[in-house]
C-alpha cells in the first residue's frame, strides 16, 4: 500500500517538474518575443555593464563574456549575410504551442537579397524524436517587391503552395545575383 503511494508521489513530482519546465520556457519565450530593444539601448547596456561591474566576478557569465558572446554571434551573422547576399532586416517570432517534443512557432521575416526585397510569414513545426529534431514549414506567405512581374508571381505562388522555403531562398539568391548583374550591365551602357 505504501509503495503505491510513494510511486504516485514520484509520478506527480515528475509531471510537476516537467510542467514547471514548460511554464518557465513559456514565460521566457513570451518575454523574449514581446520585447524589443533598439541598437542604442543595446550599446548603452554594454557600456553600463562594463562600468558597473568592473573587476567583479559573478556566479554566472561576466559582462565581458556576454559582450564577447554577442560580438561573436554578430560577426557570424554579418558574415552569412554578406556571403549569401541575403540580408534580414527584421525578424519576429511567436511561440504558438510548446510541449515536451513539439514546438510550433509563427515567424515574420523581412529582408532583401541584393536589390530584391521580400516579406515572409510562415509557421514552423519542430518535433523532437529520439535521434534528431525535424522541422516542417507550413502556411508560407511571401510578398515580393517586384510582385507584378509575372515570372516572379508564378514562382512565388508555386513556392507558397508547396511550402518551399528553402527553394525560395536558393532561387532568390541566384535570381538576385543575375538581376543585379543585368542591372549593372544596363547601367554600364547608359
Amino acid at each position, binding site marked *: 500500500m505504501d509503495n503505491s503511494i510513494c510511486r504516485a508521489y514520484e509520478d506527480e513530482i515528475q509531471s510537476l517538474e516537467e510542467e514547471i519546465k514548460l511554464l518557465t520556457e513559456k514565460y521566457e519565450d513570451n518575454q523574449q518575443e514581446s520585447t524589443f530593444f533598439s541598437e542604442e539601448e543595446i550599446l548603452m547596456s554594454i557600456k553600463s555593464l562594463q562600468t558597473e561591474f568592473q573587476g567583479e566576478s559573478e556566479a554566472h557569465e561576466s*559582462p565581458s563574456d556576454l559582450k564577447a558572446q554577442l560580438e561573436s554571434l554578430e560577426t557570424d551573422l554579418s558574415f552569412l549575410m554578406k*556571403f549569401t547576399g541575403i540580408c534580414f532586416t527584421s525578424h519576429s517570432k511567436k511561440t504558438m504551442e510548446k510541449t515536451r517534443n513539439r514546438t510550433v512557432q509563427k515567424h515574420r521575416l523581412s529582408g532583401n537579397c541584393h536589390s530584391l526585397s521580400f516579406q515572409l510569414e510562415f509557421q514552423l513545426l519542430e518535433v523532437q524524436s529520439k535521434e534528431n529534431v525535424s522541422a516542417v514549414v507550413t502556411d508560407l506567405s511571401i510578398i515580393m517587391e517586384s510582385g507584378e512581374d509575372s515570372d516572379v508571381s508564378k514562382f512565388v505562388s508555386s513556392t507558397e503552395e508547396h*511550402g518551399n522555403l*528553402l527553394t525560395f531562398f*536558393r532561387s532568390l539568391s541566384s535570381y538576385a545575383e543575375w538581376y543585379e548583374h543585368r542591372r549593372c550591365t544596363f547601367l554600364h551602357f547608359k
Partner: protein
Amino acid sequence: GVFAHLEMLEARASAAAVKQEETELQEEKLARLKARVQELRLQRDELRAKVDLQQNRQLGKEGAVSDLAQPSARAVLEWKIKSVKAMLQIFYLTGISGKLTKRGVCFCISTAYEGAYLDSYHLDLCTKPEVQILRHSIPTFIPLERIAKKYLQTDIRRFLSVLSDHLNAYVGRRYQAEQLQEHFSDQIEGTLQRNSLCNLLVFNYNVSSKSKTFPFNVRLLYGDLCCSLPTEVIVSSTPNAPASLAETAAAHSEVFRRVALHKAFHSFRGAERSVA
C-alpha cells in the same frame, strides 16, 4: 531451556526493531515526497499566475498592471543574444548557414523537400593560404572532389550552390522513395531496389483492371544528379496482360516523368477511385 527462550525473545525483539526502523524510514520517505510535491505544486501555481499576468498585460486586459520596472543592462544583452541566435537559426532554413572558425568557416548545407527539412551536411573549410576542405560529412556517392576541383578555388559561393543542388536532389529522390514505401506499400510488390545515390530505382507495383490486378515493372533513371525527377522511365507490363494496359503503362510513364513519385501514386489512386 531458558537460554533458548531468551534467544527467541532476543531474535523477536531484534526483528521488531528492524521492522520498526523500516517503517520509520518508509514514513520519512513518504513525508519527504509529500513535502516535495507541495513545494513543486506551489512553484507551479506561482508560475501559472506569472504567465497569466504576463498574457493579460500583453493583451491589455483589465486588472493588468503595466510593467514599470526597467530591465537590467544584463537582461537587455541577454535579450539581444537570444535574438541574434534566433536569426542565425533562420539562416538554417535558407539552405546555407555556418559559423566562422579560427581557420576559416564551417558551412552547413541544409536540405529540404517542399516544406520538410531533411538532412544537413557540414563542410569545415580553411581559407588560408588557399581554400581547403578540412572535414566534411558529405556522403561518398556525391561527386564532391569533382565539384571542388571545378569551383572551390575560384568561386566558393558557386561551389556551395552546386553542392547544395546535388545534395537537395539526392535527398529529394530518397524522400520520394521513402514516401512511396511508407504510404503506398499495399501497391508495391516486393522491395524497392535503389542505389545509394537514389538515381536508379526499380520496383514492381500492382495495377487493377476490371477487378484483376496486374504487375507493372518500373525502371527510373535520374540522369541529372541535380534533379529529383527522372530522365528515363520504362514502365512495362507482363506479356499476358491485356492490351488495354499498354495504354495505362504509357500514361503512367508520362506521369513519372513529370510528377514526384509519391504524388504520382497518389494521383493513380485518385484516378482508380473515380473510375470505380
